[in-house]
């Protein structure tokens, strides 16, 4: 006899509906096949389902069983099909009576003893199902937290195959999980590091605030042990909270990549990703046989931190340019072709020279000027072009570390950042822009609103430090953000004057490529 259930396959970060059909005919020798382009993990579900059925008080039907995953031309991967396959077989072999399951989606991997294990990509599947009008979902208990925020969805978290059959047949219904509002999730956000823990570092603090306020990419240059990494880690806490849409986007990518911790729930904290400099191109950009999301996508809506940037292979750094520009990356592989979002803030850190102590007051630098130049040249102009703010970080003197006194907290800075962001959203209404960092030559002039004083100062600075055109546009963007933090409609002289302090590698003084 025939039975049918619904399920979702994960393609990139999107769920595609899949109907699981089973046909059991007793007039044959024992045979059990799964068809419909299953990958290895799906094929193996044959054996898992067999054992799980047996250990949950059911039997594998005698005779011939065919399971079809439709549409049959869509490649299916992953283990989420275990539960629907098992339930369909139970229905097809009449071991259980249940009302039709057309409005319910089943997701879950089976253990051999019949327990349900979490799957990756549950949130994406549930959101896709919700978009298609489905309102009920049965899934493993460990996946329940991440989907609790999908409004209007009845979620039934189950622990085992047996519980699911009891629920579906109506003998012992599982209570639907309580819905959670996004605000509740947000309230649980905890940052692992707060700006108030950072001692001293007034200038880098200011740079972090400006970077957060304008969405600017940031380069921290400093001697080893000066606290570059700690400062960068503070950044997610300075950025305004993610809205529900952003939280969904980020969680879907993490869920699809399988890096979401079981039971972790929706990601409400902006991600902070720190790929090591030995990371391959594919792991950073995305790729692999099935075009998995890379670190730039995992950092979507958050921060991608490249520690010791010159140590990264040139090819990897160059590949970052396109996603930084477009906010989206297309990963094409033989078996898959997927677009992932990658709207990130890039924060990079580096030493000022190969030995690390150029400009340090406590140790002598051992590098010649040509060595310093060669080291700085490892970061190409076009990439530098995309980093608006450059700031030097110096080691904090001991007196500052032990000094008592309140340092400003992340929350205080965040509230100012939020105001500045609101000013930008208001200004960019209807233009599709989100923050000052996205300004380009075309819309820069009329959006930036420079006063004539500020413009004169900028032109003088360009002449004095022989700045490039790209440094020129970067200064305008940064000055615009500083003015936003002040709540000023136009960019006044002081805002421009401050912006000029945040240029480093270009201009004359860093590395002193020209002459003394």
């Amino acid at each position, binding site marked *: 006899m025939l039975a049918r259930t619904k399920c979702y396959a994960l393609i990139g970060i999107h769920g595609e509906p899949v109907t699981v059909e089973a046909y059991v005919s007793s007039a044959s020798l024992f045979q059990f096949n799964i068809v419909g382009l299953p990958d290895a993990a799906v094929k193996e579900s044959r054996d898992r389902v067999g054992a799980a059925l047996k250990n949950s008080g059911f039997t594998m039907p005698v005779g011939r069983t065919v399971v079809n995953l439709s549409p049959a031309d869509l490649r299916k991967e992953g283990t989420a099909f275990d539960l629907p396959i098992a339930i369909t077989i139970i229905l097809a072999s009449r071991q259980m009576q249940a009302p039709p399951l057309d409005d319910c989606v089943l997701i879950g991997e089976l253990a051999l003893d019949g327990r349900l294990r979490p799957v990756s990509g549950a949130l994406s599947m549930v959101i896709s199902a919700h978009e298609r009008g489905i309102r009920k979902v049965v899934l493993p208990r460990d996946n329940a937290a991440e989907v609790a925020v999908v409004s209007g969805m009845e979620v039934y978290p189950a622990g085992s195959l047996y519980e699911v059959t009891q629920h579906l047949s109506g003998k012992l219904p599982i209570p639907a999980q309580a819905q959670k509002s996004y605000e509740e999730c947000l309230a649980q956000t905890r940052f692992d590091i707060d700006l108030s823990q950072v001692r*001293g570092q*007034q*200038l880098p*603090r*200011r740079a972090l605030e400006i970077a957060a306020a304008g969405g600017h990419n940031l380069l921290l240059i400093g001697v080893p042990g000066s606290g570059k990494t700690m400062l960068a880690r503070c950044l997610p806490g300075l950025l305004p909270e993610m809205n529900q849409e952003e939280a969904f986007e980020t969680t879907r990518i993490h869920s699809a990549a399988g890096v979401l911790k079981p039971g972790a729930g929706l990601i409400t904290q902006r991600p902070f990703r720190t790929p090591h400099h030995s990371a391959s191109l594919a792991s950073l950009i995305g790729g692999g046989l099935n075009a998995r999301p890379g670190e730039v996508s995992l950092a979507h809506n958050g921060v991608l931190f490249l520690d010791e940037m010159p140590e990264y292979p040139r090819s990897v750094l160059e590949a970052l340019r396109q996603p930084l520009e477009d906010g989206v990356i297309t990963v094409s592989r033989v078996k898959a072709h997927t677009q992932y979002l990658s709207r990130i803030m890039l924060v990079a850190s580096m030493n*000022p020279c190969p030995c690390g102590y*150029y*400009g*340090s*007051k406590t140790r*002598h*630098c*051992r*590098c*010649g*000027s*040509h*060595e310093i130049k060669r080291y700085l040249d490892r970061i190409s102009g076009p990439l530098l072009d995309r980093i608006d703010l450059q700031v*030097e970080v*110096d080691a904090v*003197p001991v007196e*500052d570390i032990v000094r008592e006194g309140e340092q400003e907290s992340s929350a205080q800075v965040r509230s100012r950042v939020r105001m500045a962001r609101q000013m930008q959203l208001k200004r960019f209404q209807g233009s599709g822009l989100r923050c000052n960092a996205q300004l380009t030559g075309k819309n820069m002039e009329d959006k930036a609103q420079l006063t004539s004083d500020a413009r004169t*100062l900028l032109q*003088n*600075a360009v002449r*004095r430090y022989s700045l490039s055109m790209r440094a020129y546009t970067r200064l305008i963007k940064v000055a615009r953000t500083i003015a936003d933090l002040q709540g000023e409609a136009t960019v006044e002289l*002081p805002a421009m*004057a*401050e912006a*000029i*302090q945040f240029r480093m590698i270009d201009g004359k*003084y*860093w590395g*002193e490529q020209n*002459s*003394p």
Partner: protein
Amino acid sequence: MDKNSRNLLSQVWLASSPNLGYKAKHRILDHYGGAEQAFDRFDPHARSLAGDKAYQELAKIRLMGLDKIAAALKRIEASVCVAGDESFPDILRDIPDPPDLLFYQGVLNRDFGRAVAIVGSRRETRYGREQAHKIARELSENGIRVVSGLARGIDTAAHLGALEGGGHTVAVLGSGINNIYPTENKELAARIIASGGAVISEFAPNADPFAFHFPFRNRLVSGLCQATLLVEAREKSGTLITVGHALSQGREVFALPGPVDAPGSAVPHRMLREGAGLVTCARDLLEDMGWTVREQAEQTQFPLPDLTNDQRRLYDALCVEPLDFNELQAQLDLSTQELNVLLTTLEMHGLIQTLPGRTFKATHN
């Protein structure tokens, strides 16, 4: 082809084998009784005088003939001079082991005039670079030639300073004249030639910069000058060889003091203790050498623009000593934002200068 140019081209032929050393070359000259004779009567006996490799090279180039050698020289735009020529600096004839011939580009004269060699570390500090540049510029302004080795670091700074001073500067290479090393200084070499100075080398035009060339080359750097100034050198530095040459050639040695805790100051300070002249500016050196110092126009005090109270406080603080951002903030009690604005303003007035490590110093003290 007249007699003279035949002899000269024969010498070029002898000089164009990278594997023929100074001593082997003189064995050949003694055996045949001159370069031209050696070219004409070159025979397998030279193998025992020159060694296998050099012999083969010389034999091969000899097959080209003197005309082709002349054409090749012309192609790379190199001139040649030998002792006694109009363009061969006489001062080089006083030194032990004088060069037999020099390849050069630019202008050379029999009277090389007053010249100072500035030598120092290739891994220089900002301090050394700035001082070498400044002293070279001042010497240049006083009509003194600056001689150095076109190496990275102090050498480069000295050449650049001399160019800025508008005088002539001479670079003595440790590689061939057609194979400038380090390659990033090719442009500098071109500027030196264009400004009326010279780039010279005694090695074959295409010779690679072998390590053993440099100590040998250094005798020319000091030999061309009446005085040698040492700016920054660590122990075991190659510049010590130049100083050694200067002493054995009977030339004056000067040294520029540096911070006592910097590794590059060790050698100059030892030299100073051993009696080298102390130089803090070109005037010191000129006076010690008994050379006339061009009267400088009285430095007009740069009038300070009108400064606000805070700008004034900041400038005054930096006039005492260079300070970094944190120190300034602690001293002046200003917000990060205010201080940033002040710093830019003073920088734009040209009153202060930003150094690596976010340190600032006043420019007019």
